[in-house]
């Protein structure tokens, strides 16, 4: 089963790149933001940058959920992990995200029972296997991941698992996009929309971008041909003076999204009045917490968490990277003090982070270009 091979055909890729070259207007510069960290990863992994004309620049957006978690939330998680009897579970990337005094991995080294899971269902299984311990799942992710957490909480409730709790850090994609579009130091011509978020929420939530801000959006898949075709679709809209949401990823994304997922999320979650994003500051109604009906499963209510706001390290320019104001290599500490092995900023921690993706795949191409 190689469902993906047909979307990696090099000859077709070169043909689309040729069409892109024929579509751009000489003398005009284009800045296109890929919102999603998964796209950033694919762009570097497959060298899509190298196939584009020099006047088409890809700007990396805020769509890596690990990268936007502020240090204060990591500290809160670590505080819960240190509570007696707690088994603290989270996705692997989260283990290495620095709080103000170390990471969850450091907490584990100090004796806290911190375990990596691949899905919230794994965490629920650990809770069933350890009925005398509290099991806390540190939930992160955009609307792609939130349904998974919602269904697991519904499952925990239905099965009557009394020792399963959730620290909810789920975020929503539209408010930060609106914040970015309102930012005065940003100039973007169009957006590559997040394909798997749109699988859940549909295409409709992105319609404000062309309607209110006059920028085209193309919801895209994650294979190299998907991304190249999406860039072409954006450039064609710009050339033709059109401005709308188009769906390149129709094989997966229905216009109305996944209604079952939206129903589960509506039952389990409610919007937080505000939430802090690393580098972007507080954004209204941009994150989810457990609804009143699920408050008894809310780890933040069960345990006392510090809830202190921690300023990002001064040297770290994750905020500018997340807004697309600077490229990862323009950060003062990129590749020197901040590397995937010893990350200062969150963009370097997750493979989907713009800095880590650039460090792993893009820096050699830049060295070639400089030489």
């Amino acid at each position, binding site marked *: *089963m*190689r*469902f*993906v091979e*047909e979307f990696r055909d090099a000859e077709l890729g070169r043909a689309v790149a040729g069409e892109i070259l024929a579509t751009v207007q000489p003398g005009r510069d284009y800045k296109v933001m890929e919102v*999603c*960290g*998964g796209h950033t*990863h694919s762009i570097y*992994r497959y060298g899509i940058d190298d196939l584009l004309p020099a006047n088409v620049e890809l700007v990396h957006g805020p*769509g*890596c*959920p*690990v990268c936007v978690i502020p240090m204060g939330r990591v500290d809160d998680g670590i505080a819960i992990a240190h509570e007696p009897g707690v088994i603290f579970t989270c*996705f*692997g*990337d*989260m283990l290495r995200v620095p709080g103000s005094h170390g990471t969850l991995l450091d907490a584990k080294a100090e004796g806290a029972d911190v375990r990596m*899971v*691949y*899905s*919230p*269902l*794994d965490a629920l*299984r650990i809770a069933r296997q350890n009925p005398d311990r509290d099991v806390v799942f540190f939930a*992160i*992710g*955009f609307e*792609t*991941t939130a*349904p*998974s957490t919602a*269904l*697991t909480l519904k*499952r925990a409730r239905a099965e009557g698992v009394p020792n399963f709790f959730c620290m909810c850090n789920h975020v929503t994609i539209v408010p930060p996009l609106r914040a970015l579009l309102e930012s005065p130091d940003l100039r973007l011509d169009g957006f590559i929309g*997040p*394909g*798997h*978020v749109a*699988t*859940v929420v549909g295409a409709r939530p992105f319609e404000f971008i062309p309607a209110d801000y006059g920028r085209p959006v193309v919801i895209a898949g*994650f294979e190299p041909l998907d991304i190249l075709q999406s860039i072409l679709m954006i450039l064609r809209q710009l050339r033709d003076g059109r401005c709308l949401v188009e769906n390149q990823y129709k*094989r*997966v*994304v*229905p216009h109305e999204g*996944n209604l*079952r*997922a939206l129903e*589960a999320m509506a039952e389990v979650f409610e919007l937080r009045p505000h939430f802090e994003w690393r580098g972007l500051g507080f954004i209204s109604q941009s994150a989810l917490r457990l609804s009143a009906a699920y408050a008894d499963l809310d780890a933040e209510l069960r345990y006392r968490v510090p809830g202190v706001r921690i300023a990002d390290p001064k040297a770290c320019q994750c905020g500018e990277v997340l807004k697309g104001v600077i490229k990862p290599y323009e950060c003062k500490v990129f590749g020197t003090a901040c590397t995937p092995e010893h990350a200062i900023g969150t963009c370097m921690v*997750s*493979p*989907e982070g713009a800095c880590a993706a650039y460090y792993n795949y893009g820096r050699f191409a830049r060295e070639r270009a400089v030489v």
Partner: protein
Amino acid sequence: MDPADVPVHCDTGPEGGCITCGDVAVPMRVREVDAAQGLALCEDDAGGLAWVEAALVADPAPGDLLLVHAGTALAALEPEERR
């Protein structure tokens, strides 16, 4: 196969990247369905097996191709997309 015998997870395999916390999902083929539990035993490209949450897709059946993210099937891929 008993759900308890197979760990509930799916991995990135050789593709790299983090499928659990990035906005990334992988196609997996349904091998078995446990309708009572709402779970489907799925196989990824590398032959790895995992029980995944199947509540978001309508009536998954063995042979169906599902798009799986963080242990949850987000969508059933269209029949014409199956190879």
